[in-house]
C-alpha cells in the first residue's frame, strides 16, 4: 500500500507576523516555520497504518528551499521518502494551482490513499484537498476525526455541525482530509532523525510535472489583494478586582450577553 501525505510548511505558531511591503502577505524573512499542524495528524495517521502493516509513506510538499526542513522532519518521524516541488514559478498560485501540482505528483505515484490536513493554518481555505481529489478523480472526505481501514475500504467519522459525526465509507484509492486531534502525533526519534538523511528526497519543478503552464500568479483565478490585522476597537472592557470579584463580574457579563 502506498500512502501520499500532503504537507505544508507554515509560519511557526510563536512567530511574530508582520505584513509585507505591498500588503498582500506576511514578511517571511527571519521567521521560523513548522509543519502545518493539521498535516501532522495526517502524517501520523499514515505512520499508524504503516506501523500496522506494510505501507510506504510518501510525503509531498510545495515551497522554497526552507521546505526541505519540514520534509526532513517528516522523514525523521518515519516517512519513507519525500518529494519537494521547489519552483519559484509556482509562487502566486491559488488553491487550484497548488492542487494541480499535487495532482500531477499523485498521477505519477498512484497512491492507494492520499492524506492531508483539513486546512492550512496560514491561509485557512480548506480548498486544496477536495480539489486534489477531484483532479485525480478519486472519492474524498473531509474533517475526518476517525479513520478505519478494512480490505481497501475506509470508514471515516467526519465532524459535522452540532457536535455530531457523519460516518462515510470510501473505496481506495481515495483522499481523506483529517481534522486535528484524531491521533497523538509522535515526535521524531533520535534514530529516526539520523536515518532520515539516508532516505530519498526528490526535488521536482512544475515543468518536471508537466504543469508549468497551469501554475503561478498568471494562472491563478484567485489572488490576494490585501491582508490586514483586525482593526483596533475601543469596546474592550477592563474587569478589575480580586480574582473572585473578577470571576463574578465575568459570569454576570457573560449572562448579560446571553452566552450562558
Amino acid at each position: 500500500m502506498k500512502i501520499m501525505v500532503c504537507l505544508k510548511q507554515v509560519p511557526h505558531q510563536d512567530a511574530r507576523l508582520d505584513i509585507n511591503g505591498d500588503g498582500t502577505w506576511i514578511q517571511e524573512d527571519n521567521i521560523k516555520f513548522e509543519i502545518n499542524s493539521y498535516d501532522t495528524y495526517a502524517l501520523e495517521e499514515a505512520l499508524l497504518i504503516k506501523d500496522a502493516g506494510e505501507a510506504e509513506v510518501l510525503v509531498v510538499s510545495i515551497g522554497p528551499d526552507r521546505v526541505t526542513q519540514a520534509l526532513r522532519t517528516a522523514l525523521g518521524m518515519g516517512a519513507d521518502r519525500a518529494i519537494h516541488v521547489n519552483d519559484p514559478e509556482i509562487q502566486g498560485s491559488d488553491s487550484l494551482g497548488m492542487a494541480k501540482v499535487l495532482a500531477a505528483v499523485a498521477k505519477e505515484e498512484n497512491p492507494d490513499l492520499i492524506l492531508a490536513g483539513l486546512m492550512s493554518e496560514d491561509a485557512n481555505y480548506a480548498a486544496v484537498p477536495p480539489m486534489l481529489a477531484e483532479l485525480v478523480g478519486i472519492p474524498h472526505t473531509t474533517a475526518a476525526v476517525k479513520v478505519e481501514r478494512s480490505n481497501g475500504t475506509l470508514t471515516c467519522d467526519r465532524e459535522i455541525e452540532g457536535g455530531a459525526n457523519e460516518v462515510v465509507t470510501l473505496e481506495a484509492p481515495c483522499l481523506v482530509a483529517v481534522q486535528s486531534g484524531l491521533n497523538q502525533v509522535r515526535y521524531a526519534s533520535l534514530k529516526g532523525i539520523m536515518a532520515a538523511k539516508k532516505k530519498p528526497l526528490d526535488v521536482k519543478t512544475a515543468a518536471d510535472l508537466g504543469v508549468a503552464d497551469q501554475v503561478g500568479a498568471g494562472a491563478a483565478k484567485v489572488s490576494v489583494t490585501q491582508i490586514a490585522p483586525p482593526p483596533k476597537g475601543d469596546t474592550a472592557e477592563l474587569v478589575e478586582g480580586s480574582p473572585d470579584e473578577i470571576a463574578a463580574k465575568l459570569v454576570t457579563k457573560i449572562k448579560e450577553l446571553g452566552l450562558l
Partner: protein
Amino acid sequence: MNFAFNEEQEELRAMARGFLADHCSSEQVRAAMTSEQGYDADVWKRIGSELGWPALLVPEEYGGLGLSWVELVALLETTGEALLCAPFFSTVCLGGNALLVAGSVAQKQEHLPALAEGQLRCTLAFSEPSGRWDADGIASVATPDGGDFVLTGTKRFVPDGANADLIVVAARAAGSSGEDGVSLFLVPSDAAGLTITALPTVDQTRRQAEFRLDGVRVPAEASLGEAGSAWPALRKVLDLAAVGVSAEQVGGAQRCLDLSVEYAKERVQFGRVIGSFQALKHKAADMMLSVECARSAAYYAGCVAAEDGDALPVAASLAKATCSEAYFRCAADAIQIFGGIGFTWEYDPHLHFKRAKSTETFLGDASWHRERIAGLVF
C-alpha cells in the same frame, strides 16, 4: 573543527525543543520537582522508549545509536533551557559514561542495552562529605575479601541518587592516597548495606542523595577496569561530565536572558517599558556576552570530547569555569531585571538561580577549574 551544527543536529534540537515545550513547561517542571520521585515517570519513559535519547552515546553493537558528544551537547543545551526533571544527565553523562569509558565488554553487554532503552537509570557516586572534586576527595574504602570487595564510607551529592537502579561507586584501597588505589564498582541500588537518603538540596529540579556504604559486598567482576587503577578513567568521566553540565548551563543561561528580555519589553515603570532604560540594556548586553562566550566554550569542549583528544582536560575545565560563571551571572541578573518578583515562586528565574548555584559547585566551581587549568598549562 566546525562549530555549526549540521542539518541532523539542528533537527535533533528542534525535535527536543518541541518535546520539551509540550512536556517540560514551567508548570510541568514545578509539578515534577515537587512530586515524590522528583520527575515525571511518563516523560522519562517517552524519552527512553520513544525519543531514544539515552541511546545517543551507546555504540550500535550495544543497542545504541553511536552518536558523539557534539550531538549530546546539542541536546543537553535544550534540556538545560527547560530545566528537565529526569535522570537523563545522571544516566548518560555519569553512570552510562563510566560504563562506556571503563567498562569491560561483558559489563557493557549486560547494562548498556537496557540503559539505551531508558530502562536502567544510572549515576556516579564520587564526591563525599569533604566536597572535594580531586582524587583526594575519595575516602571510601574498598577492602578485598576473598573474591569480593567490601565497600565502606559515605558518598554525598550524588545526582538522582535516590532513583538510580545502578550506581558506579568510587572507592580506594585502604592506606592509598591521591590518584593511587582508586577503583570504580558497579553497585545495584538494592545492595545489602547500602543506605540511600535524599538530601534537602537547593535545586529540586535535580535532586541529590547521600549513600552510606556499610559493608557493601560486591564481586571482583563489578570492578570497572582493574581495581586500584581507575583514576585515569574516572578523571576522564568527570571531564566528560563537566562538558555535559556546561552544555546544560549554556541552555539555562540563554533561557535567563530570553526571559529577562521578554519581561523588560513588557514591564512598564515610570511611563515606559523598563527595557528602554540604559542600565537594563547594558545588563542584558552583558548577559548576552556571557552566554555567547559560554556557548563557544561548551561547543569547543563538545568537539574535543567527540574527538577524544588530549585537549579534553583543558577544554572541559575551560568550559566548566566559563559556563558556571555565565549561568550564575545570568540567573542573578535575571532576578535583578525582574525585580522583587524574580525570586517569587510564580516566576522562573529562581528555578534557574538554584540550578545555576547547584551546577556551579558540582564537579568543581570556576575557581577550582581555573586552578586546574593553570596546573595543566604550566
